[in-house]
């Protein structure tokens, strides 16, 4: 009887020894603090570019930048928050996930001491703080880059069609009329996807504090006139054959730009960098940037940094976040390496803003984007925005493809969104 535990013990020991050796080794090897930053491409390039300057200023804190693909990163962070293990010290988040993560309660409230993030509020583009604030008023993250919404258009194509920039941007009716002229004269599509038009048009008339899909009390707003109007506009564009039916980020979409079959695209200013680097490098100099049609101001995307409640090195994490977001030099450096637009207002005053952009035919577009950024209304995000977006997208498809009545479609969307957001 006595030999049994003995041999079991030996076995346990044999199993544990190599395990503990691997666990303990790294801890003993270093005295410096290692700050883990979980991020995703292309945002990771901003952090990597900041490493030399960081090391100079914080020689005792070593940065460990862990980068996963966009979707994998956010899934991994969800899992880490769920289990409370494997959490990084600093977590990068895309705007799309901010609502969900802010409500989760797994992130530090950066408004509270010792962070006191609200003191920095005036230094950032105003709508970013609203996006990063949860419904309970917690500041879940700090903004690092923003995506002022712009209409990118092909100057050569609209010139050929005898259309001016003012024709494109005056109002939606004029935008669609211009699209018909472009189609007739050049054969090019006005835009990639009628859904793009719907998505931005449904933000018409939004004011500070109003949500896109939900009001402050959580009531679903999708049967309001702005949604009806947005659906009508999208349907009109589709019926007139003005869109290439190419969903963003698909092969068809990219090919549409490469082959000059798409005349305009509404997107965050950062799309310029994507067009230049891989979507359509050969069309350099032919693009221009303008305000969104119909006097609308909106933003596309944006990146944030947050600290999980279970992070190991919170003071250092806060140092890092401030270094990335509230430091003018880092922000400008990110602009240089990434073409992302800084969230820090101080960076907007730099001479770098006056630099002509060769891809946009020498246009000083950053000045325009700066103006747009200042005018974008501060719209709160809801954790159910993603659900609502999905449902609206599906109902819109039914309207344009199956001829479903818009009022019915929006009523159906409303009941489904109410259902999904039940808790």
């Amino acid at each position, binding site marked *: 009887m006595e030999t049994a535990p003995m041999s079991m013990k030996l076995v346990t020991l044999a199993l544990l020894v190599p395990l503990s050796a691997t666990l303990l080794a790294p801890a003993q090897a270093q005295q410096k603090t290692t700050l883990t930053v979980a991020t995703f491409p292309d945002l990771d390039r901003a952090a990597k570019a900041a490493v030399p300057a960081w090391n100079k200023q914080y020689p005792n804190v070593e940065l460990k930048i862990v980068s996963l693909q966009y979707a994998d990163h956010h899934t991994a962070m969800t899992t880490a928050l769920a289990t409370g293990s494997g959490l990084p010290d600093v977590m990068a988040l895309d705007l799309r996930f901010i609502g969900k993560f802010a409500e989760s309660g797994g992130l530090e409230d950066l408004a509270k001491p010792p962070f006191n993030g609200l003191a920095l509020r005036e230094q950032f583009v105003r709508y970013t703080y609203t996006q990063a604030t949860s419904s309970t008023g917690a500041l879940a993250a700090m903004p690092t880059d923003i995506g002022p919404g712009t209409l990118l258009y092909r100057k050569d194509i609209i010139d050929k069609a005898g259309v001016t920039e003012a024709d494109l941007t005056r109002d939606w009716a004029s935008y669609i009329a211009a699209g018909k002229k472009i189609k007739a004269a050049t054969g090019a599509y006005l835009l990639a996807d009628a859904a793009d038009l719907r998505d931005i048009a449904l933000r018409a008339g939004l004011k500070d504090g109003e949500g896109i899909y939900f009001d402050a009390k959580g009531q679903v707003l999708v049967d309001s006139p702005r949604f009806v109007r947005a659906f009508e506009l999208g349907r009109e564009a589709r019926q007139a054959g003005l869109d290439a*039916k190419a969903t963003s980020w698909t092969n068809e979409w990219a090919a549409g730009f490469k082959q000059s079959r798409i005349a305009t695209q509404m997107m965050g200013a950062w799309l310029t960098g994507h067009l230049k680097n891989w979507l359509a490098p050969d069309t350099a100099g032919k693009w221009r940037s303008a305000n969104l049609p119909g006097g609308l101001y909106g933003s596309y995307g944006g990146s944030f940094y947050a600290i999980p409640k279970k992070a190991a090195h919170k003071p250092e994490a806060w140092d890092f976040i401030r270094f990335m977001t509230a430091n003018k030099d880092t922000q400008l450096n990110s602009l240089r390496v990434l073409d992302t637009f800084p969230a820090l207002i101080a960076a907007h005053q730099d001479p770098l803003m006056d630099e002509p952009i060769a891809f946009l035919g020498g246009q000083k577009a950053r000045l325009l984007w700066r103006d747009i950024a200042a005018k974008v209304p501060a719209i709160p995000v809801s954790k159910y925005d993603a*659900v609502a977006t999905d449902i609206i997208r599906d109902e819109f498809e039914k309207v344009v493809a199956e001829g479903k009545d818009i009022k019915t479609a929006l009523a159906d969307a409303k009941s489904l969104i109410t259902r999904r957001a039940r*808790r």
Partner: protein
Amino acid sequence: MKMRPLKARDVAPYLFIAPFFVLFLVFGLFPLGFSIWLSLHQWDPAAGLAAMRWVGFENYWYALTDPWFHKSLYNTLWFAIVSGLPQHLLALPLAYFINRRLKRTRNAVVGAYFLPYITSSVAIALIFSTLLSKDYGVINAVLAELTRVPLLGTLMPAESIDWLGQAAYTKPAVAFVVFWRFLGWNVVLYLSALQVIDKDLFEAATLDGAGEWQQFRYITLPLLKPMMFFAVTLTLIGNLQLFEEPFILVDIEKGVSQSVMTTAIFMYRLAFSDGDFGTASAVSWLLFIVIALLTWLNSRLFGRQVGGEHAAR
């Protein structure tokens, strides 16, 4: 009574099989049990384990009354039939033909049919999305060429078809890819069953004057029944869990993606896009019940003589 002291030798066998049981426990049994537990809770994973809230069967009721769940079930059954039935209707005669007529080239032919089955589904989906592309796809290019052929040309569509962007085409396109992928697998299954049928039976039948069709109808088919049961069961289970092909072929950001939303995709969307893991777990168990029911039905259909008649050897 004194027990014999345990020696390391007695423990060793358990140790050697332990890895399987440990892995099964951690990655098999635990998730299974946890998903039942989870399906009775409301849980947003980003909020941590502490945020789990008991809701009983509400998630099941919620799923059962959800219009998207109904739609996804319809889509799943549609795929199961439209991509599953032809697999067997074609694989059976094909296997019969290969078995009877091909001698030296047999392995090469079977290998060619089997290749899609062992290819990564992601690679397959990517290749097909290139083939099926509206403006740059080979399939539309071929169709466009065919319009120039007299007579046949009038049957061809005048405009290029948006295979993966228009609800009328997405389902058939995805079903075809699934069919193409699993045809070879079924051919191999049927072929292996055909090869064990005693040749004497066919010789005797030939002597009795039975033609090829009669031999197929009265010897081959009845003896293949057990394998048919097995193959149809596998197809049923596989098709009802269909996820990869529709998920990759029709981007979830596209408006039409709902036209190919299978129950597995709906479950994925509930969990990873809506953050509702409780309902997603409930949906997975509802799907399990559907699969179990249909498999049972299938066994009633085919299974009665399973085992008994295989003695023909």
